[in-house]
């Protein structure tokens, strides 16, 4: 590994460095503010390095990782999400009785896992990345074990995630093994291998299927979504935010890279299965959110539905054949950015409110009655997030959904589009229901809240910033589109 490769790898090195620095720091000083500050600065530096090196060409670092514009753009997004997750965690942690500092180490490790996954073009690094991400998340999901009433559900969420993640990893690993048995190499462009196939095609088909199933679990595609609501509900709000945006985006980014490298005609075989999963995700995700009374569960089902929406573009991309130059891959990219922004915004508001009263996180939606009058700015930001998730024009969600429709129409996926429309219509109901509850006249039994909220100004900056970004991307999406095109062009 020479200096050029080392420099190219800099964003990942910085993220990894952050976790080591934090570990050493905590050994000497336990200071929450300092820990959070170091994390944020480190992640910011990593993100800026990643953005700065865009356009530096494709650099293969060891056989495992490739640093191209695709990696850099999505790493920047991934690290940005982690930054937001640590930012929003500060207020949340400050209000809790938990030991706070180790959370940031785990977050930095998860971010590193995500970046490795995005950068991997080898099954080994893919597995390292995905496991690094998941193992960190097990601990993060179950982080609030001392949190009083809700500790049971937190622990339950963590354990469930760990076991089921294990099951899915076994699928993933077995799939990789079958592919290796067929192709004889472990790079993701295995079909280009000179050795050629000696075993029957069946190895490849079953192997790819199992690989996709492993990823489908991470992406909560129906029917591999069962863990989602339980884990989302159990995890602390900032972790849920990270889980819903960061973890999903890293996996989706790898999926795009894998599709392009392996050649879409191989995946053709999976089209029927993918279509079924897309339809089920869109319908079931929305249907099960319909009468949901816990906001975090509701957002879990909503994320299932949104993953389903993104599958429409994914299927369109596979049908096109020429993925990297197509509008479908672009649609996935743009939707990922929009979805990450909206989800983070929703969870940032949720974390902030949970710091005031943990009932906001664990309790019924009715808790939010009259929020508009108690916390007008928080409620407004939540409106923006929900309107974005609905796909209202002038928010990022509209641009994303518009792109998805465009990709679907391009490939004439009429069934999927009808389901997408029906799903969005169903979605309207439960998103608007939450907004309606927030607009209700303040009731008498307004929940008791902390008198002096901790560091609310700090998280207020993050929330306002995310809110403005959701609107900005909705009004002027060109920079995002340009970035995504740049990223795809390097594949």
């Amino acid at each position, binding site marked *: 590994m020479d200096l050029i490769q080392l420099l190219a790898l800099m964003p990942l090195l910085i993220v990894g460095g952050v976790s080591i620095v934090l570990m050493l720091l905590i050994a000497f000083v336990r200071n929450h503010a300092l820990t959070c500050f170091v994390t944020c600065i480190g992640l910011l530096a990593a993100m800026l390095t990643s953005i700065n090196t865009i356009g530096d060409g494709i650099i293969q670092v060891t056989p495992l990782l490739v640093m191209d514009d695709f990696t850099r753009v999505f790493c920047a997004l991934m690290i940005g999400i982690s930054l937001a997750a640590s930012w929003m965690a500060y207020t949340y942690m400050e209000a809790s009785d938990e030991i706070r500092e180790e959370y940031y180490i785990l977050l930095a490790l998860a971010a590193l896992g995500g970046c490795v996954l995005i950068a991997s073009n080898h099954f080994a690094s893919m597995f390292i990345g995905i496991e690094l991400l998941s193992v960190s998340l097990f601990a993060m999901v179950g982080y609030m074990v001392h949190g009083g009433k809700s500790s049971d559900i937190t622990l339950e969420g963590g354990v469930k995630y760990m*076991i089921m993640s294990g099951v899915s990893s076994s699928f993933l690993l077995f799939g990789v093994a079958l592919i290796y048995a067929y192709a004889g190499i472990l790079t993701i462009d295995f079909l280009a291998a000179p050795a050629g196939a000696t075993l029957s095609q069946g190895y490849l088909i079953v192997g790819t299927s199992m690989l996709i199933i492993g990823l489908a679990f991470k992406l909560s595609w129906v029917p591999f979504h069962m863990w989602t609501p339980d884990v989302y509900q159990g995890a602390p709000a900032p972790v849920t935010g990270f889980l819903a945006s960061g973890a999903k985006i890293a996996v989706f980014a790898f999926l795009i890279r894998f599709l392009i490298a392996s050649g879409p005609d191989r995946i053709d075989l999976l089209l029927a299965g993918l279509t079924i999963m897309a339809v089920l995700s869109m319908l079931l995700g929305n249907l099960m959110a319909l009468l949901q009374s816990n906001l975090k569960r509701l957002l879990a089902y909503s994320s299932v539905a949104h993953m389903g929406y993104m599958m429409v573009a994914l299927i369109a991309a596979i049908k096109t054949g020429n993925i990297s130059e197509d509008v479908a891959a672009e649609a996935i990219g743009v939707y990922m950015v929009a979805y990450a922004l909206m989800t983070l915004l929703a969870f940032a508001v949720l974390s902030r409110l949970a710091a005031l009263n943990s009932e906001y996180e664990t309790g019924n939606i009715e808790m939010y009655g009259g929020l508009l009058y108690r916390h007008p700015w928080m409620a407004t930001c939540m409106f923006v997030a929900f309107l974005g998730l609905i796909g209202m024009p002038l928010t990022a969600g509209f641009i994303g959904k518009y792109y998805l429709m465009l990709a679907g129409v391009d490939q004439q996926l009429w069934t999927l589009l009808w389901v997408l429309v029906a799903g969005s219509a169903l979605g309207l*109901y439960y998103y608007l229901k939450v907004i309606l509850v927030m607009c209700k006249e303040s009731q008498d039994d307004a929940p008791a809240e902390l008198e002096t909220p901790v560091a609310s100004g700090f998280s207020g900056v993050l929330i306002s910033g995310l809110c403005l970004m959701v609107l900005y991307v909705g009004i002027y999406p060109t920079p995002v589109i340009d970035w995504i095109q740049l990223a795809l062009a390097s594949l």
Partner: protein
Amino acid sequence: MNLLWLIPTLPFLGFTILVLSSGRMSRERARIVGVGSVALAFLATIYIATQYYAAAAHGLDHGAGFTVSLWPWITAGSLNLNFSLYLDGLSLSMLFVITGVGALIHLYASGYMWDDPDYTRFFTYMNLFVAAMLMLVLADNLVLMFLGWEGVGLCSFLLIGFWYKDPKNGYAARKAFVVTRAGDTAFAIGLFLLFRELGSLEIQEILHLAPENFEMGGNMPTLISALLLGGAVGKSAQIPLQTWLPDAMAGPTPVSALIHAATMVTAGVYLIARCHPVFLLSPIAMTMVASIGLITLLVAGFTALNQWDIKRVLAYSTMSQIGYMFLALGVEAWDSSIFHLMTHAIFKALLFLTAGSIILAMHHEQDIRKMGGLRKQLPVPFWCFLIGSACLIALPPTSGFWSKEPILLAAWEADPIFWYGAVFGAFLTAVYTTRLMLLVFFGTPEGGIPKTHEPKGWQLHPPLIILAGLSLVAGLFNLPAADVLPHAHEHHPPLWVEITGILLPVVGIFIGWQVFLKGRWQALRMESPAFDGLRKFLASGWGFDWLYDILLVKPFMALAKANRNDIVDLVPKAVVVASSQCYYFFSRGQNGQLRFYVATMAAAAIMIISLALFT
């Protein structure tokens, strides 16, 4: 000409100021704005008229108009509509009627309504009405005209229901709105057809294109004319859409004078006159116009004879007079029709306003049985009412005579049947007008001559006197509309026809005088119980309300009642039920049990792999 836009803008500005003040303005200021805006519009009309005549004197073709384009309004495909005004003799005549008579009525109303708590609201509506009515007559295309058409309908609705606290008034307003809406719908469909057939909605273009594209007597011009006629019939309260007008008398009396006598109800006449080249292409439509006019004037005349409410008598008389205008249109006496429109606007406004004065003096009593012998106590209203009645009866040399006589002659030319009907209508007019006059101002009612009080406010009498003077001399005016409309052919009916036309009203007066004052020929009053049924039938306006109630209102209400739970709603409801059932079904799978989750994953994995292998 460039200032033409001022005329509708001024009342609209008045409306805007009044509506924005939202009741905070003092009465004095509201009066200045409300009356002043219309008065200024009248001055602007005079100025425009001088310009128009000056242009005409400089060799402008007679009958040609001026178009003043303000801005593009609607541009969609081949449809290009401008917000533009059109001025020719016809619209100029209407402008004079609307702003002139309108300003006088506004002045009168500023005194009449003085004690009303909603003074500002009244003038807000009135100014909006004048603006909409001016838009209607100045519109260069039919869509803009439709805007004004709907605008006056809205204001009529608002003003009939002005005293909304009495549910009866609200009902009357609703009835007027719904019934005219039937006509408006026909009008709108007519517009669509015109656009489909001719590809234009500019009035002047249509009038040029229609004779070129439609064959004489073809189905299309008949259909279009009939639809436009439907709109006209609704607005002008002609049979079969006449039932709303008597109930519309629930509004304040100045409203009845302005909207339901002088201006809005004549919009139908204006529409047909404006579109006469289209109507001329269809002899059937022309006969329909004439017949509707004739039937209405007779039906309304008979009904007026049996009314006891002073305003309802006048309302039926308005219907009947507009019937004359329709008859004139139908027999191609275009200019006579518009002439009668103008004189009628003046003398009927006079009659209504005088009736308003009487009602005020009688402490809001409208029943003529309780009046009588008022001529000594109310000298000014008496003389004004007398002049107005003379015009209505069409006694020479009042303006009513000059405008009605040509209609009768033209009717003779077209078909003697029309003449017989019209001249009998004139006789009826004389009888019911005499009856009204005598019952109000002469004789003594059972309870003795009622006590009256002098209404306050100097604004009440000048408009009456001016209108009375105009009623007498309006017959001498040279109507600018005559240049626009085709000239009626020279009338040469036999002498006896002319003499009968003049004499029959006099006979009517004589009979009325004998019956209602001298008490002779009491059988003609039909007061014996044997005539009860007939009297009721006539008094109810020939049972049209009853008929519509059975044919339309009741079935509709029954249908609405039967469909209370809205059949169409079942579909969305089904979606709701289906979705929530799905929710419950799928939620059951989300049972929180790890073993079930993992089993589902395994099963799903098997399914996905088999799909990949075996497809």
